[in-house]
């Protein structure tokens, strides 16, 4: 079995996640959704979304990921290891083909999952997430004691000490689908609680931190709410990738964008972007936010149609986006309005605004976007900046403010293109963009200064430009041959600087 090459005595340096997915026949059953009145989803659909989310996260963050599926047989379709972005479509395809059948060997699956995370004398290191809707009715190797004094049946191994040997650092999260008050209608709540309790006791005995939870979800909305904490956006029909721009077009874009920096009164939206940019730089200490970090994705759409597995990846939000992209705007609006309560408010309001704008309902669109701005203000800085940019692009389109749209889109596209590249390169370019934005202030002073102060203001502005230009030159030297996105961004900044005069 492939492992991550971190089998040494030292603890792992990267996060290790193994997802255990129930593929028993009962996963075909529908999961009701009375809260939203929306269409019922099969349990397997929501379970697939869970896998897509975790996979996506692993590919983005560089965490190690493994997938274990189980019926009465336990399989390892994805061994623990790196998820390379280029392999993602194959794995996603594989997941979409997973078809439920047979019974559930839950304990055996947990045992295999623990084996994937086992690191010699370090015990079991990593995170196990179990998604199941059933009762264990097929395990042959492992069992869980029915009470602490009892023993496991002959020929079986006690799962708890096997999963949690000394020196381990393991978290187990169980997502139980459907109420298990009645056998075969949902998860076996009693047995799951026994397992979690025994794991906690074992951890206490070994002096390990208890990190075991069991969560019961009975509706599709609840499950999606736990899984899809995301802001997703797609480009507009007339967007052109920055790599396709002719140098003269790039220059025109940059000159347009510079106008947004030079005329703040006419381009008020830009001010919100600058603030967000500086916020991400952070102060002495990172700001604390109660809400879990939101995933922000920009999905490329092309001539081949909408991105693959939209619904599987993003659940109901994916359905909204798919409906929007296929031009079913009324249906998309209906769907987005049903997501209240489980989609992040900023995501819901943004999509409402976007759909309304596409329907030419300008007043409704403006109202929703205004609320989205307010919601975005509550977000932690790291997620706030890219979301504010997407709001700004929509706002600029609604106001027919081409200059702001060009500026914000260029920054956003650059970051998006570099999201899977070297984070230092991305950070450096975003820093340069931030510095470019700051020139608004010094430039503005040259416009406002009276005759006597004009020279002072001009000198300060030119000094600021010189500083940014110096950083730009260093970036040119350090980032030579980093590809068209980086070079395009540097060209764009250079021309913007020339325009700031």
């Amino acid at each position, binding site marked *: 079995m492939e492992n991550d090459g971190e089998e040494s005595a030292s603890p792992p340096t990267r996060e290790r996640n193994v997802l255990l997915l129930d593929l028993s026949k009962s996963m075909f059953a529908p999961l009701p959704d009375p809260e939203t009145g929306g269409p019922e989803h099969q349990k397997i659909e929501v379970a697939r979304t869970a896998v897509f989310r975790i996979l996506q996260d692993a590919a983005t963050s560089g965490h190690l990921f493994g997938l274990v599926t189980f019926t009465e047989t336990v399989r390892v379709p994805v061994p623990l290891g790196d998820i390379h972005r280029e392999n993602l479509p194959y794995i996603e395809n594989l997941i979409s083909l997973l078809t439920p059948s047979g019974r559930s060997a839950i304990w055996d699956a947990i045992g295999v999952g623990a084996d994937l995370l086992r690191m010699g004398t370090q015990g079991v290191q990593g995170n196990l997430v179990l998604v199941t809707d059933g009762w264990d009715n097929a395990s042959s190797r492992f069992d869980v004691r029915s009470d602490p004094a009892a023993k496991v049946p002959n020929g079986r191994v006690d799962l708890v000490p096997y999963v949690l040997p000394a020196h381990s650092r393991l978290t187990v999260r169980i997502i139980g689908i459907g109420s298990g008050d009645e056998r075969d209608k949902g998860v076996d709540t009693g047995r799951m609680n026994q397992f979690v309790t025994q794991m906690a006791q074992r951890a206490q005995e070994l002096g390990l931190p208890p990190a075991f939870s069991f969560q019961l979800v009975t509706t599709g909305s609840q499950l999606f709410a736990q899984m899809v904490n995301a802001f997703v956006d797609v480009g507009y029909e007339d967007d052109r990738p920055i790599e396709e721009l002719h140098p003269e077009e790039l220059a025109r874009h940059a000159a347009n964008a510079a106008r947004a920096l030079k005329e703040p009164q006419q381009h008020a939206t830009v001010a919100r972007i600058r603030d967000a940019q500086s916020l991400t730089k952070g102060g002495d200490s990172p700001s604390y936010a109660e809400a879990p970090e939101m995933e922000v994705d920009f999905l490329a759409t092309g001539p081949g149609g909408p991105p693959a597995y939209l619904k599987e990846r993003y659940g109901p939000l994916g359905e909204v986006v798919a409906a929007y992209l296929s031009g079913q705007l009324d249906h998309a609006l209906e769907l987005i309005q049903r997501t209240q309560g489980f989609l992040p408010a900023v995501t819901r309001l943004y999509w409402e605004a976007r759909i309304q704008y596409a329907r030419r309902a300008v007043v409704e669109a403006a109202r929703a976007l205004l609320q989205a701005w307010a919601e975005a203000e509550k977000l932690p800085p790291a997620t706030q900046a890219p979301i504010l940019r997407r709001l700004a692009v929509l706002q600029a389109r609604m106001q027919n403010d081409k200059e702001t749209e060009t500026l914000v889109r260029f920054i956003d596209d650059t970051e998006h293109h570099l999201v899977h590249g070297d984070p230092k390169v991305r950070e450096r370019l975003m820093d340069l963009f931030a510095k470019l934005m700051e020139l608004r202030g010094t430039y503005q002073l040259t416009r406002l200064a009276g005759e006597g102060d004009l020279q002072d203001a001009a000198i300060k502005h030119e000094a600021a430009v*010189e500083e940014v230009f110096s950083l730009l030159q260093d970036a040119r030297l350090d980032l030579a041959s980093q590809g068209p996105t980086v070079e395009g961004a540097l060209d764009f900044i250079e*021309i913007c600087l020339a325009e700031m005069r």
Partner: protein
Amino acid sequence: MPEVKVTTRRRSTGKRETKPSADTTRIAVVGIPASGKTTYFRFLSGHFGLNLPILYIPSRAENGSLPLFGDLENDVALEETTYETTDPTDPEGSLETTTRYYVNRPMEDRRKLWVELSAGRDEQGILTKYPLPTKFNQFVEMKMRFRYAAPEGEAGSRPMELQTVDEAGGIIADYFTYDRIWLDTPEGEVTEKTCRVIPHFDSWRPDRRDLWKRGLTLLGRFVCGADAIILLLSPGLPSLRDQAQQVNLARGVFRYTRTRDLPLVIAVSKADKLKEFYGEVEQSVRERTYRSTFDTTDFLLRRDGAGMGTILVAQEGRGISTKEDVFLISSAVSTGEGHPLFIGETGEEAPNSGTVTMGVPVMVNTTLPLARACERILERRATKGA
């Protein structure tokens, strides 16, 4: 007979016909592609060799005379050396040079020299202007020799030399724009590594990269030894990229001259393209007694006449005086349709026959930046000496 001499020789052979004396003062002329460097050199040479008329607008108080003159008895006025790589793939980079010398003695038929000097690019055998340099394997070093100050003055006149790397506005723009390339010694060499500061340098053809590096080195060495710089700015560039290139060059030249305490003079070339200014020129040609009250400083600073925005304002008093060191010039005033505006013997506008036009072209303020640069060099020397 035309007094134009052309010789061709390999780099390692032959001997130059003239050499500047050791105490020659050198002024570098810089500008982006098509900023008017070639025209500036050729028309000034015409002035030194043929006494082409110059208008000063607004008129100079002191009868329009400037202590600038050619020394045709002893020296050539203009020397152009074309550097061409005969085989771009040759690692030794064998350079062949072709040197043309203009006007090394008074002309019998002055018009013939004028025709040669004012020949267009096609007539000179230069087929294209873009992409720059004109040819990937060629650039031209231009030198113009003249003397400054009255020959009978107390200290006599001084030999001066105006230099540029012609057909290489792109090289000039890159050199000054990116200070990471700057050379600190006349023996320095621009490296491949520092050249990467130039956008997309790595993606260029190897022979172009090599020629660019050579050109940057040549330019770097010669501006290292320059006593002053004249920056040519072209107004009204249609391309945004060209505008950005010019602004970046200007900012770079300001940085360069400031850090090296070099005199800088700015000439806004092709000023006849500026409508307001052209109106003054036209009136001056028609009415010899017309005294222009055109306020150049106001036009440049407050009405952004040079397209430099607040840049010129920021430089005021930091190495230049916008009142004294910035000029609007035109080396051959056009009629607004691309044809030079000629004046006949009587001072009236000569009709443009479409073939060889009698009369001489009008230059506006052309010698002023040069005279000012000389003046500042001497002032600086006097201050340093003191």
